[in-house]
């Protein structure tokens, strides 16, 4: 008989973690009070503020797990976790550096040249260098292995031609990690022949055009590469390792607090509004949502603990993202019973603004970073059905 069992161990914590949490909270409260930022929903995607990212870098809250010689602080995954969850629930504008901190930096650490590490990582940690993801294309979304962007070998390097789509934030970034085909297409080995390059976005031949999304935000873009030259040492890892690199980081990318806390800021505001005279019916809806958030957080922390122990809990991470992103949507769908959502920007009312923005952005939650349908396939495979 099969056994469907998952393990979510509690990460080992110490005083320094709670100290750090308090520090971050105090900073954020001060920032809000002094008008440093206005809380936004889905802030890790919709909140762009390079100056704010730089402030966080100065505080030493970016790249915290990296080696000190590259600008990091060699803190634990749990330290990074509490920083990120506090930023998320405060609705802080962290998009500019989010990708670089979460995955591009670790990718460079794992696969970059010594030059890359010394030149780029400290700047990311300082909140001054941002990186976008060049993965999806017009013809390649969920089926990422079908990308058509090609990199041709030339003297001293490669020439890249193709178009990347979505690649959030490229307008503000200095670099993009570009997944390109370097080997011949083989239907029996779909994942072979793919390579990732670290491409400076000010290279000749690069054009970035913003694409507004349905919530009015314009961080999506179309990035076109026309014979863009990069030197040999722009290859991340080795030629042909692209697919392996992308899949190896999935457990980390998919299981973090940004997969269930994107709309918490709306819930928080609603609770402040209604706490004084909450009725039983509202309490029931709130309690049900909160119970689920708490349980998801336990799962998410469990994945962080497993990653820290050296495991690669791909299925557990997929579970967190599948459940969490649907909850992010459900929060608005359930709260609207008490706070109907009709008006864009809600006549300046903060709760209305957070609710309506959340609603307009919610279709993206279950699509980005691997659609929930793809995730369910990963879960099913992990259980032995595929």
């Amino acid at each position, binding site marked *: *008989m*099969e*056994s*469907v*069992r*998952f*393990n*979510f*161990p*509690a990460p080992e914590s110490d005083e320094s973690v709670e100290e750090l949490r308090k520090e971050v*909270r105090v900073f954020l*409260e001060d920032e*809000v009070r002094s008008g440093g930022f206005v809380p936004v929903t889905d802030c890790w995607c919709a909140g762009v503020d390079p100056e704010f990212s730089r402030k966080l870098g100065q505080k030493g809250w970016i790249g915290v797990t990296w080696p000190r010689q590259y600008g990091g602080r060699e803190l634990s995954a749990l330290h990074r976790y509490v920083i990120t*969850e506090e930023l998320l*629930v*405060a609705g802080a504008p962290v998009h500019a550096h989010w990708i670089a901190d979460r995955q591009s930096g670790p990718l460079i650490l794992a696969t970059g040249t010594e030059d890359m590490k010394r030149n780029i990582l400290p700047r990311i940690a300082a909140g001054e260098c941002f990186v976008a993801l060049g993965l999806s294309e017009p013809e390649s979304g969920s089926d990422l292995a079908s990308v058509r962007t090609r990199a041709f070998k030339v003297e001293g390097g490669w020439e890249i031609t193709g178009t990347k789509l979505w690649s959030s934030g490229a307008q503000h970034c200095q670099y993009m990690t570009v997944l390109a085909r370097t080997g011949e297409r083989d239907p029996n080995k779909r994942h072979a022949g793919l390579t990732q390059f670290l491409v400076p976005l000010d290279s000749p031949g690069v054009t970035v055009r913003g694409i507004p999304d349905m919530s009015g935000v314009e961080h999506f873009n179309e990035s076109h590469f026309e014979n863009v030259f990069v030197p040999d040492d722009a290859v991340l890892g080795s030629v042909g390792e692209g697919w392996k690199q992308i899949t190896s980081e999935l457990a980390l990318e998919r299981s973090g607090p940004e997969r269930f806390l994107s709309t*918490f800021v709306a*819930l*928080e505001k609603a*609770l*402040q509004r*209604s*706490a*004084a005279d*909450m009725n*039983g019916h*509202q*309490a*029931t*809806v*709130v*309690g*049900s949502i*909160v*119970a*689920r*958030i*708490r*349980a*998801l*957080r*336990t*799962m998410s922390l*469990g994945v962080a603990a497993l990653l820290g122990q050296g495991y690669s809990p791909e299925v*557990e991470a997929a*579970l967190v993202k*599948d*459940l969490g992103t649907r909850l992010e949507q459900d929060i608005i769908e359930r709260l609207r019973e008490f706070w109907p959502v009709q008006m864009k920007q809600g006549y300046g009312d903060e709760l209305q603004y957070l609710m309506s923005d959340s609603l307009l952005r919610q279709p993206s939650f279950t699509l980005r970073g691997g659609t929930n*349908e793809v*995730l*369910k*396939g990963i*879960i*099913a495979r992990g*259980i*032995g*059905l*595929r």
Partner: protein
Amino acid sequence: MGFDMEQTDQLILDTAHRLFTDQCDAEIVNCAERGKTPERLRQAILESGLTLAWVPEEAGGVGGSLALGFNLIRQAASFALPAPLADTLVANLLLAESGLAVTDRWAALAFDGGELPALLQGEVNGVVDAAVGAPESAVVVVPVLEKGVVKIATFAPSTIDIEHHENLAGEARSRITLDSAIPGQLSGPVDGMTADGLKQFCAFVRACQIAGALEKIADLTVGYVKERQQFGRPLGKFQAVQHMVADIAGETALTGAAVEQAMRRVSAHPEPFIGDCELLFPLATAKVVASEAAGRVTRVAHQAHGAMGFSFEYPLQQYSRRVWGWREEFGSEFSWSERLGMAIASEISSLGAGEAAGCAWDVVSR
């Protein structure tokens, strides 16, 4: 599994697993519901001392940790164990906590989360609608209230009015009526125990049971869709079915995580029956998540099983009927959600407007 568990705890859990595997199968469970009492199984459990897992050694028990007992309860549920092990464990724990003599036979727990019977001048009056384990019990354990203070009383089954009923799964749930009843044993006030704290504890026991049952339901479903073939291939090869199984896995994992987190918290608390905020949050979370998951998982599992899952003979129904009953007991997801929501609102509104910002997250993440 296994936080706060000593090595000896794990041995006990393994022993129990072997016992259940050897002596409790789907047929035994169905027969038990049809009136054929599983004597051998029940005797084996009593002889193994499992019902005394939560009783300290000096009181004649096994001296296992709280975590051991909860894991045992979860495991027993995954076998649909036709014996009141969970409730006898709780009953014996209450007896030990209150300084009364424990029992090495079955105990009935006459507490269903409702109002406690009242103790006045040595006599107990009240009704418990859904006591567990009464038919085979040697002693009936009743938490009672005397002027707001919780005490534990025991009665011999023959001396009180017991009306036998069954829950949705055919498990005994008896209505016990106490009419100026004089207890066989009566404890003094039990330190650190409130009626609400007791209810939270028992709700959590049900959450552990639901977690065990959902894991079994998930296992049954995966096994079934791998085996059953239609249209030339196993059901599990269809994407729609794969997604259904992924949904079951998600709700089951979420329930397990909530239960384990609560287990860690209650194990670390000096007064597990006090029902303070430290306990309310994790215990209510576990019961809400488990009870919500019960409905979702059973719906999908039955759908994946087709007509076979609807039959009495196939074991799925033993688990779905159990979780449908357990999700209601000691408070459903609705009542515990309301408690949680009100508790959060109360904390937020007790702060000044300036400090309230961020309070919800502070409470949620505690």
